[in-house]
């Protein structure tokens, strides 16, 4: 198990290197520097600016320099937010995104699996059909549609909840619901399908034939096997939450990473874009690692054949 875990951790390092290199290359392909719009500067000043922002020398030189500073955890100064380091900005923004993501994750997992189980256990009843229909609408609704609907209803219409900013737990309710909507609906669909599939398995029929009480069959045989398959969805789910946070943070003016990324791209704030991308990559790698480990812990077949996928 420890060997397996170590192997997965080491496999993440080349991924991070590729992310850093690809983003570096992509950003240098973009036309124009961050100071092009300003008036023509005397060469000395321009030179000083370039030195301050590590833009001097050849591309190869800049790349090596960039990787070196990266290894030291230095993400460089932001182009747009004068006097602030990228690492500094991220220290404020990352926890906000993580809180939002964690709340949405809990909501999606608990709600989605709960609804899926409720539907799967009562196949072809009104409850099942309405949950199936609801989750179909849920996977078809972009987060800005959900967000706008929630703001109109609870923010502007009823005035129960704040429709923006980030100043306390109450402010997290609408963004978290918006972010969780799509994965929740998807988890419900998946759980429902899994439960239905497991119910048809031979071992369930055997257990019933042997006279095992129905409640026990459901808990021991159906639930366990269905959940094991649903767990494979946790990795993609975390990715969806990270993706969704861009829109949600913009809609609700939440000062997290996603919002900084969008403005950084439009501002050509290269170091900030690189910083956010790297943090995202680290989070994705860590999330996948956690899911892999959890899965290996639950399903011994993976641990044993760990090298072979």
């Amino acid at each position, binding site marked *: 198990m420890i060997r397996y875990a170590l192997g997965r951790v080491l496999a993440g390092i*080349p991924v991070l290197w590729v992310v850093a290199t690809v983003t570096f290359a992509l950003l240098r392909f*973009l036309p124009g520097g961050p100071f092009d719009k300003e008036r023509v500067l005397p060469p000395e000043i321009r030179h000083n600016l370039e030195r301050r922002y590590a833009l001097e020398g050849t591309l190869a030189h800049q790349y090596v320099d960039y990787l070196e500073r990266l290894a030291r955890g230095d993400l460089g100064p932001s182009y747009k937010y004068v006097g602030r380091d990228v690492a500094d900005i991220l220290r404020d923004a990352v926890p906000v995104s993580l809180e939002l993501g964690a709340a949405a994750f809990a909501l999606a997992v608990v709600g989605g699996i709960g609804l899926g189980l409720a539907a799967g256990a009562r196949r072809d009843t009104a409850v099942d059909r309405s949950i199936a229909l609801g989750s179909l609408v849920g996977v078809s609704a972009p*987060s*800005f549609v959900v967000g706008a609907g929630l703001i109109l209803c609870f923010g*502007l219409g009823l005035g129960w909840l704040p429709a923006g900013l980030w100043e306390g737990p109450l402010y997290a309710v609408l963004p978290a619901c918006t972010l969780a909507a799509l994965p929740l609906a998807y988890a419900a669909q998946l759980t429902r399908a899994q439960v239905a599939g497991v119910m048809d398995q031979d071992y369930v029929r055997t257990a019933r034939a042997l006279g095992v009480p129905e409640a026990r069959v459901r808990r021991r045989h159906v639930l366990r096997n269905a959940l094991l398959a649903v767990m494979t969805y946790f990795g993609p789910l975390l990715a969806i939450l990270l*993706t969704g946070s*861009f829109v949600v943070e913009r809609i609700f003016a939440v000062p997290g990473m996603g919002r900084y990324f969008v403005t950084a791209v439009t501002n050509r704030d290269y170091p900030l874009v690189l910083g956010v991308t790297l943090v995202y990559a680290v989070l994705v*790698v860590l999330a*996948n690692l956690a899911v892999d480990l959890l899965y290996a812990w639950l399903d011994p077949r993976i641990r044993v054949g760990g090298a072979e996928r």
Partner: protein
Amino acid sequence: MNARGWVGLVIVLALAGLALAGDRLAGYRFDAQDTAQALAAPSLAHWLGCDALGRDLFARLCEGGRVSLLVAVGATALALALGLGYGALAGWVGGRLDALLMRGVDVIYALPDVLVTVLLIEVLQAALTGLPDLWRRLAALAVALGFAGFVGVARLVRALVLQAREEVWVEAARASGASPGRILLRHVLPNIAAPLFVSAAFRIPAAILAESTLSFIGLGIQPPFSSWGTLANDGFEAMRSYPHLIFFPCVAILCALLGFHLLGEALRERLAPRFRA
């Protein structure tokens, strides 16, 4: 196909019809401004009302649908073409090449895909200098989204080809002297077409979702051009006082995604029941 599938098909065809007809159906040009009608509520003259510049919302939704669907279909076609070539090569040749190609897929999979898509759009946009503005944006979006989708297709195709390679009919074809290319095109491809078709049916709504989301946050289609996402964004700004401006674009997107999902589910049930997109 089941009843829900037919509902989905009707929705999809209706929206495609609106997109094809474009603003001709509305009786107004999508960019014709009539400031006297600015922010007008829905009426007989303007079925869905007008935006802040007095442009007919229905005409703009038709025009926006054209852009959204074009990007989605382009991205899906590209993802399929790339993924088919890549996956078939890996699955058919196998061995070292397979390991190398799949390693590449693993790395791309681990990249944060929105970020890469956004950066790719900006780079492509800058690189495609020869094209007119709107087409440049469209092409950049379609290529970036297609690239984001191709790894999934490649994995699927590889798994399907690996499975098919062991079948008796492949051996029979080989024994009767068919060339590898012929076996792939005439025997393997038709046999794996059903799950591929189903995955394409789910890829189109995914692309619509991605495009509208990017356009909504201002990184996809940009003014003066519009897609459903930009229209929703325009509406979002004015939501407090003029909710109809965000309501109708959202309904259009919701209908499109719902229609494609219903259709996709029905196709899956009919063609490839064990396949999960």
